[in-house]
């Protein structure tokens, strides 16, 4: 399956979705002008991946910042991941960023996927 690889920018996160190498990561800053448009290819990719996923998937969020419109789409991403067997989330936050830690905890309460929290 094709690799989805988007370079990050000052207002969009870096995305790597690579089934073959088992790398699934969203990192950086997310405040795009149109968050629905930005996240659509990611949601499409996850839907296709869900047809024939790896036995186990570790999906990494390593976000420095996201705006509220992105938070809605991140929940959509998590909801799409929720339907895939063997899914686990690793949620990174900067060690002094309590708000990002709390955001991860809130997402973990909204979906039925195991979350692991790590600092960087």
């Amino acid at each position, binding site marked *: 399956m094709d690799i989805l690889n988007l370079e990050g920018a000052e207002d969009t996160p870096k995305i790597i979705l690579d089934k073959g190498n088992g790398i699934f990561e969203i990192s950086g800053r997310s405040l795009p*002008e149109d968050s629905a448009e930005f996240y659509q290819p990611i949601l499409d990719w996850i839907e296709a991946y869900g047809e024939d996923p790896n036995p186990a998937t570790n999906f990494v969020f390593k976000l420095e*910042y996201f*705006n*509220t419109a992105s938070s*809605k789409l991140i929940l959509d991403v998590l909801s799409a991941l929720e339907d895939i067997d063997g899914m686990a989330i690793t949620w990174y936050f900067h060690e002094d*960023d*309590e708000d990002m830690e709390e955001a991860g905890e*809130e997402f973990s309460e*909204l979906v039925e996927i195991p979350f692991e929290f790590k600092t960087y």
Partner: protein
Amino acid sequence: MKYVYDLHNTMLNHNLILVYEGEFTQEITKSILSMAERNMDSLGEESSIKRKVFNVMVEALQNIVKHGDDIGEGLSANRAIFIIGKNESQYQIVSGNSVKSETADKLKDKIDQINSLDKDGLKSLYKDIIRNNKLSEKGGAGLGFVDMARKSGSKLEYSFESVEGDISFFSLKTTIERF
């Protein structure tokens, strides 16, 4: 040309470190954000405060970008003001834009509701909205004010000045304590 000196003095007297008046777009939002970030970096601002200021700025600026043209086409459509104030103990993020009076009523209700909630109340309101709301046509999640209140930890201050007809000028101030 005295207005230049007056404006300069107004900025100094109100401790304003940045004032932008004009059209608001995503490109301008990014420029203002990077200016403010550089400013805070050069002053050695603490990273947790920087993040909070950045957070509130993004929501305030994107509110204007998304809703600035709600009053329709015309001279003042999509023109608004954005201000950052800073004194020894706090940052103030201020935005001002024209709205229709029906919008003004909705905004008042929404902000009053948010201001009536404590930390836990804001958290449950946030979760309720993110779980149940769809993105608006303009791509907003309906979470901007809630997030500004949560990240700043302070009440949102607002005022409406009547402009003309059914148009009001909506000013919103969020305060972030530095210590």
